[in-house]
């Protein structure tokens, strides 16, 4: 069986002119210029690139987060200031009212 299989599956030459056709096609293929730097990067380079990208991403996240926090804090501070001013105004108005009331009372008692 093994010998029969070897006989049935022995190598066959391709049709005449096969090599010439391959050579013609190979010659007509455009020659691609080699990249200056080898595209295949080593594992260390890939790891370095990954770390650099992660660092850039982390910096961006921290910067954007800090900016958002600063804006929120600024708004809160402005609100506090406005509230304080309103309270001061109300205080002043209250004391004026009390003073007027006291004068009226005083006049009536006379």
């Amino acid at each position, binding site marked *: 069986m093994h010998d029969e299989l070897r*006989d049935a599956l022995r190598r066959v*030459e391709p*049709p005449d002119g096969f*090599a010439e056709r391959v050579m013609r096609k190979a010659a007509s293929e455009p020659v691609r210029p080699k990249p200056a730097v080898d595209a295949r990067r080593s594992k260390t380079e890939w790891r370095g690139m990954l770390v650099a990208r992660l660092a850039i991403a982390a910096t961006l996240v921290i910067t954007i987060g800090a900016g958002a926090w600063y804006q929120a804090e600024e708004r809160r501070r402005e609100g506090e200031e406005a509230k304080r001013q309103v309270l001061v105004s109300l205080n002043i108005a209250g004391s004026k009212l009390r003073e007027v009331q006291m004068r009226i009372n005083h006049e009536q008692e006379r």
Partner: protein
Amino acid sequence: MGSALATQFDADEPLDFESLVRRHQAMVFSIALHFLHDRSAAEEIAQDVFLQLHRHLDAMQSADHVTFWLRRVTTHRCIDYSRRRRFDFVWLDRVPEPAAPGTHTADPLLSRRLRATIASLPAPARMAVVLRYQEDLTPEEIARVLDRPVATVKSQLQRALKLLREKMVRYA
């Protein structure tokens, strides 16, 4: 490109692309032909494989590397091609005749019948049989070419042989 290869290959090896094509054309064409049983598809695949070799010639490190690379690329291309082909009928009268019928002693009818029976095997087992009996590779070498575990290749070969025996007995 040939000069770059010249420094990597042995001094007595043919170095240029044309020599590689002429040396390996029968191997590449026969793997495709015995697997696909279609001369025009086999020629097309063989041409594509050599053009791919032409593009990757700088990456070849030795003559053995070229042989291994060609076997690997050819087998994978053939398997891909047979997956894409929807109907995989093989007619006995389309099974290719050997190139030089006078160089063998076996019964040509029997050989033809055997090739047709091989054509009826499932694709993975068929490729293992082609590499085992055309290229005379060991199961370990076939496993490396096909990227399969050695145990898988061994069981595929055993099952293929059993099937072939049964079919040939029925034929006889």
